């Protein structure tokens, strides 16, 4: 069961990361980047590092995605 979870999240990370780099719009790529963070949270937790998992969930897929989205907004508003 644990092995299945590890394998599924690993394959999920690779698939989501690849689909993030082939996206045409940057906003979609940022949303898929959040998916990469989610997969690594599951991996970190299963491998016994809850501290790192919490940090990745909060900073990796929470704050940094918001900062990317807001930077995108500022780039778009530029003439």
């Amino acid at each position: 069961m644990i092995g299945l979870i590890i394998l599924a999240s690993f394959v999920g990370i690779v698939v989501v990361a690849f689909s993030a780099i082939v996206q045409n719009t940057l906003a979609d790529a940022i949303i898929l980047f959040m998916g990469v963070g989610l997969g690594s949270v599951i991996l970190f937790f299963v491998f016994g590092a809850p501290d790192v998992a919490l940090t990745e969930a909060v900073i990796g897929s929470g704050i940094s995605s918001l900062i990317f989205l807001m930077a995108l907004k500022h780039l778009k508003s530029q003439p």
Partner: protein
Amino acid sequence: MNLKRTLQTSTLSGFTLSAILIVTFLNILLQNIPSSVQRVGDELLKLNTTDGVSNAVTTVVVFFRGFDTLGEIAVLFIASLGIGLMLNENKKCEIKAESNFMLKTASKLLFPIIVVYGIYVMVYGHLSPGGGFQGGVIIASAVMLLLISHKNFELSHSVVVILETFAGISYVFIGLIGLLILDVFLANFLPHDVSSMGLLLSGGIIPIIYIVVGIKVGSEMSMIAQDLIKRENDV
């Protein structure tokens, strides 16, 4: 013409950089063929029992690498300073669309719960997974929810400045007290018996430092979010 030249230079430097990185990586990989397994973790776990903190990660981050954590906080401060300087101070961003009433109500409902969870993660950092960085960022994410959903909500600048200054100064001050009493910067001068391991009041200065780190990280991250959401860019 000019564009072509820059493109070529950047491609060339990119290839050089990746070549250097690959060579370094191979070098590290070939030198560390598992003839001798490194056991730093076991040594740290042995040392961890002398401090009376049940979460070993917290002991490493705050106590054995306490000076390093001070540097990390300085890096975060410089990052928030840079974002604040890049955006225009006087020009507010015009948000035209009013938020949905469901988003408003749900964010009002969720805000206290997220803040209490962040404070829990921050205060119990030496007992359970989590700590100052994570708790501070969770509090900042609650503030961010209100910033996104409410058009007129804004943090008071002076309160954030007071909180952040207090936190930064008290970190250095605790370190200096340790230097005065035990001749080591950031020494654990408060009682830290192994018998009290697992209690809320254990570990000497370690929980205090983590709470201070949480206050600093939370205020800085909230200010970064507010600057990015509410201010117009200058350039």
